[in-house]
C-alpha cells in the first residue's frame, strides 16, 4: 500500500507535464487575475445594479457545475496516479472525468438558454456583459480541456494500455485542474458575492 502510494505520487522537485504547459497556465492565471480585479472595480461603480442582476442567476446551477468540475478533477488526479502505478483503470477514470466535464457544458448551455429566454442577454446591463464574457471565456477553456482529455484518452488502447510517457496525462491533467480552479473563483465572484 505504502509502496503503491509512493509510486502514485510525483517525485519531489518534479514539474508535472511539460514545462511549456506551465508557461501557458501562468499566463492564464495572470490574465484571469486582471479579469477578476476589473470585475471587482466595475462592481464598485454600479453596486446596486450588480447586486440586483446577480440575484437573477440560478445559484444552484452554479453549485452543480462546481461539484461536476471538482469531481471531474478528482477523476483526472486518480487517472494520473493510476498511470504511474501502471494500473489499467486509468482509461476508465479519464473517461469518467470527460463525462463529468461534458455535464458542466450541458448545465452551462441550459443555464445560458434559460437566461436568454428570460431576456437576460449579453447587452442587458454591465453585469450581464461580465457574466457572459467571463463564463464564455471559461467555457472555451472547458471545451479545450475536454479536447485535450479526449486526445489523452485516445493514447490508451481498449485494454487500458497507454502509449507514450506520463508527461502527456500530467500536462493535460494540470490544464484541466486550471479550468477547475478558475471556475472556483468565478463561482464565488459571480454567484455568491
Amino acid at each position, binding site marked *: 500500500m505504502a509502496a503503491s502510494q509512493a509510486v502514485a505520487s510525483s517525485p519531489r522537485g*518534479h514539474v508535472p507535464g511539460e514545462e511549456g504547459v506551465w508557461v501557458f497556465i501562468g499566463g492564464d492565471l495572470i490574465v484571469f487575475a486582471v479579469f477578476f*480585479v476589473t470585475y471587482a472595480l466595475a462592481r464598485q461603480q454600479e453596486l446596486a445594479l450588480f447586486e440586483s442582476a446577480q440575484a437573477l442567476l440560478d445559484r444552484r446551477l452554479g453549485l452543480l457545475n462546481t461539484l461536476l468540475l471538482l469531481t471531474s478533477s478528482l477523476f483526472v488526479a*486518480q487517472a494520473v496516479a493510476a498511470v504511474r502505478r501502471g494500473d489499467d483503470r486509468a482509461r476508465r477514470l479519464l473517461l469518467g472525468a470527460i463525462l463529468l466535464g461534458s455535464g458542466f457544458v450541458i448545465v452551462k448551455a441550459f443555464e445560458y438558454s434559460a437566461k436568454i429566454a428570460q431576456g437576460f442577454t449579453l447587452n442587458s446591463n454591465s453585469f450581464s456583459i461580465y457574466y457572459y464574457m467571463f463564463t464564455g471565456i471559461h467555457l472555451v477553456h472547458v471545451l479545450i480541456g475536454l479536447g485535450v482529455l479526449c486526445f489523452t484518452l485516445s493514447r490508451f488502447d481498449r485494454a487500458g494500455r497507454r502509449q507514450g510517457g506520463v508527461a502527456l496525462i500530467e500536462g493535460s491533467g494540470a490544464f484541466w485542474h486550471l479550468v477547475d480552479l478558475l471556475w472556483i473563483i468565478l463561482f*464565488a465572484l459571480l454567484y455568491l458575492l
Partner: protein
Amino acid sequence: MAMIWRSRITWVWAMLIAATFLSFETMALGNAFLLRSVILVIAFTKVLLVGREFMELRHAPRWLLWGFQSWAILTCLVLIALFRT
C-alpha cells in the same frame, strides 16, 4: 476499484466539496463585508488545495509552488480589499 478511492486526493476532494457547501451556506447568511471575505478566503483556500494536491505542486520546485501560491494569496487579498463595499 474501491481501494483507489481511499487515498489522499479523495480526502482533498471531500474537503473541497464540504468547503463549496460551506461557502454556499455562508452566502445565505447575508452580505456583510466579513461574510464576503469568508467566501473569498474559502474560494482561494480551495484554489490552493487544487493547486497543491490535484496539480501536484506541493512536490514541484519551489519557484513553481511559490509562484502559484503567491498568485493565489495576492489575488485573494486584492479582491477582499475591492469587495469591502
